[in-house]
């Protein structure tokens, strides 16, 4: 309760700093006041098209996350169980984690066009996270349990599904929690650069080209709220690691 109150106080402090900055600037066009942005957000939420846009962006996020999670977990578990596989995959994973996302977007956009780019970028950002999380999950299985697993007469698929995955699950869930928020932010950026039709990024882009900064702020506020809801929602199911 005390923590919630303090978080609320933090939000109010941010809003106050914003309000003071807006008053200091004295130009609603360039820096709209919090209340104007909240009103603009209410307007956006009152439009039917907004939900079509949100649904389209979530669908892209879901597809990227699903593919990245499936491949990331599968390869991550393999990498955790076998150091040779890990050594082979390490350059891919390290490379993806090191390359700036903006470079990835530009390269993928040139190679694959603006429709596929958002999916590919989502995958490329989430895959290394899920790989590392799954690999760490396997590596951190208690040594005693590992020894017990070794002497149990289970075949590999059963061993993975009945033992390895359940025991690595806390790490995988943490990876997933980080991936959803990060994936969503990167997805919006990719949509913006690729100017994907019917997307949150496109709404930000249109606000930018028409110099409608109130709308840009309102969509940004909506993105913050969405990420907050997603991360908190998933956090409730996340066991402590």
């Amino acid at each position: 309760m005390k923590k919630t109150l303090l978080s609320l106080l933090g939000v109010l402090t941010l809003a106050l700093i914003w309000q003071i900055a807006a008053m200091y600037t004295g130009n609603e066009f360039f820096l709209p006041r919090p209340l104007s942005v909240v009103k603009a957000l209410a307007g956006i939420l009152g439009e039917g098209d907004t939900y079509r846009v949100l649904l389209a962006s979530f669908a892209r996020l879901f597809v990227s996350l699903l593919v990245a999670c499936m491949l990331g977990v599968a390869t991550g578990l393999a990498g955790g169980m076998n150091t040779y596989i890990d050594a082979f995959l390490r350059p891919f994973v390290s490379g993806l984690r090191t390359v700036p996302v903006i470079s990835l977007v530009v390269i993928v956009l040139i190679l694959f066009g603006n429709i596929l780019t958002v999916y590919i970028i989502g995958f490329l950002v989430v895959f290394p996270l899920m790989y590392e999380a799954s690999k760490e999950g396997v590596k951190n299985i208690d040594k005693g349990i590992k020894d017990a697993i070794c002497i149990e007469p289970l075949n590999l698929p059963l061993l993975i599904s009945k033992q390895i995955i359940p025991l690595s699950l806390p790490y995988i869930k943490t990876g997933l929690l980080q991936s959803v928020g990060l994936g969503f932010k990167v997805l919006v950026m990719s949509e913006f650069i690729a100017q994907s039709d019917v997307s949150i990024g496109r709404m930000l882009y249109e606000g930018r080209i028409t110099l409608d900064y109130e709308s840009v702020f309102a969509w940004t506020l909506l993105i913050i709220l969405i990420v907050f809801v997603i991360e908190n929602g998933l956090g409730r199911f996340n066991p402590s690691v």
Partner: protein
Amino acid sequence: MKKLLVLLVCMIGTLSACDDEKTLNVMVPNGAPALSQIKVEHAMHGVENPRYDVEVVYGPEPLVSAFGSESHEIIIAPLNLGAKLYTKADAPYQFAATITWGNLYLASNDALKTLRDLEGKTITAFGKNTTPDIVLSAILDAYVFEEAPEIEYVDGVDTAIAHLSENSASVALVAEPALSAFEMKTESMNTIDLQAKWETHVSDKPYPQAGVFVHSTLSEATIETYIEALKESMEMVTEDTASMAEMMETLDYPFPPALMPSVIQRSHIEFKSASQSRDSVIAYFEVIGSFNPALYGATMPDDAFYYDYES
């Protein structure tokens, strides 16, 4: 008493001279607008206390920021952007002149001479809902097709050009200087000048692209001195591309000098004062307004928007 008056007049004169000699910050977007003023920029290159400190930028954000923060006394910007910031953000800048009049083309490796050649085709275009898209759509809307062409949007002019190289039969909306750069790499390229088609099918006046915006605190003499220097630069750019190419190399411009004759010819660089441009501006905003009024602010700028300068 007389001596005191003379002294006072001298002091005021000195102060005004100081104001005139102050370095003026000028912001200009890259491309045809930057090329138009290259002589001004070149003359200031390496000078310790330049009269004009020219900053060449990419994209609209630095321009919007300059209008908002009033960091630059002179800003060259797309006309619709300047007008919107004048009407909606009370930016204290006046429109002094138009310097470029469109650089948009339809290009194809296939037969493309008239709008009729677009029958039933798909045009790859960039900048959905922005001015290039509106110019194209206004022309297509005004022309009667049996089977109207469809528009497929991509993220930018580079991608539109990539479509041209992938499919020789495709048609793309392109802009200078990217068009000339691509043309150098292809054997045959057919183009339709959208500026000419605009004047034939949409409006009897050309559409203004980039304008010069001057801060309201600048003195008339300061503005006129800059305008004269700018006009001189534009004259050189359109008549002596060799000198311009040399200046580009000195200033590290990212365009190959060999492209310049074609880029300049297709960029429609021409000086027209605010009053000379006024009818074109109004006609242009009326067309934009019928597609996306938010692009210029939905309100026609008042008389004070136009800086009263006669060339």
